[in-house]
Structures are given as C-alpha cells and as structure tokens.
C-alpha cells in the first residue's frame, strides 16, 4: 500500500502505529510472556532496558553478555523515530535498574515517557549527551532546503537540529562508552572490574572495526565522496570519513517529516550536476521515494544501508560492528 506523497506527516505515524499494533499483538503469545517473566523473576540480576537494537548490542558487550538482563524496547526493524510505546513498555521501563537511550531527540515519540520515567522511577542514560555532537543537518546548506529555514536560529532551533545519529561514528561512540560503563556500574550495580575488562575489549574491537572501515572506504576517490541519503542520518559518518552529504530524499533528521515535489526536483538536478552514482536508501523504510528519484535521474543505483536498527545475521548487520562494516562495504562498492 502506498501513501499519496502529499498525505502529510500525520499519515505516516498513523500507518506506523497501525502496523505496530498489529505486529505487537500478533507476536504477544504466551511463550513471550513466560520468557519475560522468567527474566524478571531471576533474582539479583540487573535489568537494563535499551531503546534501540544497536545500543542493546553495545550494552550487552559492555556487560560481558552475562552481567545484566538487557531488554530491547523498540523491536529490531522498528523505526526509533516512530515507535509508539504501550503500557507494557512503561511497566518494563519502570521495573528496570537503568534505561539506556540514544537521546538527542532520536526516540521522538518516547521522549515524554522517558522524562516521566526518569522523574518517577528509573535513571535514564542518554548516550547522545556524552558525545561531541554535530549540529546542523547537512542538507540544509544546500539548495534543496526551503527558504526561510535559516532565519530563525534561536536556541530551541539549534537544539532541534542536533543530529541524533551518533552511532555512525565508532570513534565518538568509543569515547562515550566509559560514561556508559560507569552508569552500568553505578545504577545497575554491575561488577566494576568485569565491566572494565569488557569495556576495554569492546573498545579494542571498535578500534579494529574503525581501521577496517577506513581501509574499506579508502578505495573511494576524494571527488566521489558524495552521499545522497534517505533521511539526514549520515552526518557523523560523513564527518568521520570525509564525505559530503549533498542531499536527502527526506531533508530532515526525522523520518516523520515528508519531502515535497520541489525538494525532490532540486535534489534530482543536484544529483545530475554532481554526477552521483548511487542513492542510499534505508532498510527500515520504503524505498519508494528513493526509487522514484532514481527513476527521474536515470542511470543511478539505489543501495539499501542499515541505519536505525540492526538487521539479521544473514544481512551481515546482526551486530553493531557488523552493521558499520557492511554499510562501509556497500558504500565503497557503490562509489568506487
């Protein structure tokens, strides 16, 4: 089922919620319940709730895959921008020792809930707050942003434009991990010595992955380091590896925004004038817009990257490190 392009932003979340209601009720069998209950009833085991599958993988690694029960809030394949929490989710959040979130406005529909939970019951660690953030969404420097967007730079605006997609830069993530490890020790009561060991081991793995990715991307000549993406999610990637984001199908750091015909046309012209060989779509979302853009430009590939959620092992995106490496390989393959 396709939505008319101009149905407006409210139609997207409507469908997303309808879909999530169906999938969640469909999945909630007695088997799930008893598994959750068994976890809850294990005594003395720290309970950490993590919003996205990517951060859940990171938290599992820091807790040595054994020290804490890590519960994932937004199911794999779910859009962190559009997740609609239920009262069951609230119960899980309330009973946790620590909640780990990305923050910076990524979990748009959860913000309200996380603030309430933080005030009433459970400490919330927002990884984004421990990262050297990037502010402006890159595509706004280009012609395809509507005029009038630049003239209102008060503090609220600056805050809104902080790019939340920090996990695309493993160096920034690695720098934030000690703070996360401290929170796991202080709030969830994990064994400090063991967490420290696992932290160091994981930082080593991140460093190796970082070297690997730099190597993979080195085949792309400087002149071709230009990205056209689905939504403004690759700011940190571009910053780390020396890419320029010349435009996005949805020119917003949120997937809940929509594009307009004028913006798509401007982007198509930009792609033609810059001779960009690929549009990078996202596994979480429909590629309709990207396909339409590719059809309009002609002679351009649409490559699907892994963005807000882990894929499964068959995609080679089942872990955070795999996801980073797979994206790098796909980007290198398309641009070199």
């Amino acid at each position, binding site marked *: 089922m396709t939505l008319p392009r101009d149905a*407006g932003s409210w139609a997207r979340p*409507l469908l997303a919620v309808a879909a999530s*209601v169906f999938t969640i009720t469909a999945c909630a069998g007695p088997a799930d319940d008893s598994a959750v209950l068994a976890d809850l009833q294990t005594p003395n085991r720290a309970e950490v709730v993590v919003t996205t599958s990517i951060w859940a993988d990171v938290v599992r690694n820091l807790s040595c895959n054994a020290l804490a029960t890590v519960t994932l809030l937004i199911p794999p394949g779910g859009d962190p921008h559009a997740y609609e929490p239920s009262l069951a989710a609230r119960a899980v959040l309330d009973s946790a020792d620590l909640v780990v979130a990305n923050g910076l406005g990524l979990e748009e529909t959860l913000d309200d809930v996380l*603030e*309430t939970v933080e005030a009433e019951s459970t400490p919330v660690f927002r990884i984004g707050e421990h990262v050297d953030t990037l502010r402006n969404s890159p595509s706004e420097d280009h012609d395809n942003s509507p005029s009038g967007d630049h003239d209102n730079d008060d503090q609220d605006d600056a805050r*809104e434009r902080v790019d939340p997609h920090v996990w695309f830069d493993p160096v920034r993530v690695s720098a934030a991990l000690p703070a996360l490890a401290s929170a796991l020790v202080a709030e969830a009561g994990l064994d400090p010595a063991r967490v420290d060991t696992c932290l160091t081991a994981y930082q080593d793995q991140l460093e190796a992955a970082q070297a690997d990715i730099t190597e993979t991307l080195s085949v792309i000549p400087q002149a071709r380091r230009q990205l056209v993406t689905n939504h403004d999610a690759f700011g940190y990637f571009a910053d780390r590896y020396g890419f320029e984001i010349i435009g996005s199908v949805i020119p917003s*750091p949120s997937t809940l925004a*929509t594009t307009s015909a004028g913006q798509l046309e401007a982007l198509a012209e930009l792609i033609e004038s810059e001779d960009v060989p690929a549009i990078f779509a996202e596994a979480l979302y429909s590629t309709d817009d990207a396909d339409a853009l590719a059809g309009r430009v002609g002679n351009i590939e649409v490559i699907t990257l892994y963005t807000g959620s882990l894929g499964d092992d068959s995609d080679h995106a089942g872990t955070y490190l795999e996801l980073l490496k797979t994206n790098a390989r796909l980007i290198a393959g398309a641009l070199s």
Partner: protein
Amino acid sequence: MEFLTNPVDWWIQPFISNGFMRNALWAGLLTALTTSVVGTWVVLRGMSFLGDALAHGVLPGVAIAFLVGVDTTVGALVAALVMVGGINLIRAHSPLPEDTSIGVLFVGFLALVVVIMSSRSGSWIGDLNRFLFGSIIAIDNRDLIRQGVAALVSVFGVAMFYRAFLVMTFDETQARLLGLRPRLAHAVLLALISVAVVASLKAVGNLLVFAFLIAPPATGTLLVRRVPLIMATALGLGTVAVVIGLLVSFHYGAAAGASMALVAVVIFLAVLTARALSDLRAGRHQTALS
C-alpha cells in the same frame, strides 16, 4: 485466557502495583466522564461530523502554540473556538448547509497544519505526534488536574443548559418560544465539545478522541431512551472501554489510546448486533403469534 484463569492478576494487580496504571486509569475515567456528558448531545443532535472536525481542527493550534512556545492546551482550545466561530459565521452568512461549512473549515485546518509541519523540520514533529495518539502512559498530576477541571466544566455546563439542550434537540422553535435562547445554548454546546476534545488529547490523542465522543453515547442510545440514562450508560461503557483498553495495552503491548478506542467501538458493534438479533427473534415471535 489468563483474564479468566487468573482474574485478580489480570484485572486488578496491574492497577495496584503500578502508579502509572492508576494515573492512566484516572485520565481515562475523566475522559470517559467528559466525553459521555457532552458526546450524548453530539449523537442526539446529529453533530458527529462537527465533533470529528473539531477533534482534528485543534491541530494547527497545537502546532502554532508549540512554535511560539505557548501552552499547547491553550493553542488547541483557541483553534477549536476559532473553528466553531468560523463554522457559525459561514452558516450565518451563506445559503450553504452546515455540513458544508464544517467540511470546508475541516480541510482548511488540516491543510494548514500539514503546511506548517512540512515547512519546518526537526524533532518537534515528534512532540506533535503526542497529540495525534496521546500519551496516556506518561500522565502526571498536572494532566489529571487539567482533565478534572474540564470534567467539572462539562458536567456543570451540561447541567445548567440541560433544559435548553433537551428542548432544542427535538424542537428548536419551541425552545425559542420558551425563552431558552437556542442560539446561545448551541454556542455553549460547541464550546463544551471543544473543551472535551482538548482535555482528552493527552489521554486518547487527537485521532481517537472522536471515538470516545461518539461510540459510548451511540451505544447508550441503542440501550436506553432517557437522556440522563444515555449519559450514565455512556459513562459506564466508556469506563469499561478504558479499563479493558489499558489492560490490553499493559498485558499485550498494544498502543493504549488505540486499544481503548477499539474496545469502545467493538462494544457498540456488539450491542448493535445483539439488538438486531433480539429484534429478529421478537419479530419472528410476533409472526408466530399472529
């Protein structure tokens, strides 16, 4: 089947052991109270379309209030009142029927909010999302106070204008002859609908508040005939929808606002079916007798 085999754990325990469930319950009950006393008139007077238009028409007010940093409840209320005023203005100054003036303003307001949203980007869209679907899982005392005030206003407003509403629902001319000032009463009713819609936004959300305004009172009219009884039935059924909806969301992880609205509509359909079946049986019975 746990709600049958282990009723205390399924039905009662969630509310006892979770503060947020009690807050959600209070918010839901206040929503049911406000919408049932007001919604009964909406159903009886055939104003459903206006109710729907109002539920969506508050969005531009929310968006503008958010942009300029004013309390979004105030923005929503202003938008609702502007819409109501606009509908009356168009109706008074044109030969068009009322549903046309509602329809024109309905799409006008919806288009306005989409234009505002699409010309801006950033995370505030997520905040607007809260109003589309509500956020009953994060109700605090301030929300409850706001809903409590709205419930009081609705109940007192309906009690004060009860006679005027009643007479003009069935005979507007007679209402005028009796000196009940039907135009004032109509304006008051519109204002009360606006209050009910705006107060319930956080609990059930903008897209689903309409379900509470219409479904329980409509079910009530199927079951009883006197207006106070319809209101009481609507309140009872609304309460059932709230409790079951919250528990479904709690036990099965479905979105709370949608679960409550769905239960309210399912109750309506169940009552309608039961009534049709019993009419059928009564009809057959009569045929057999004659």
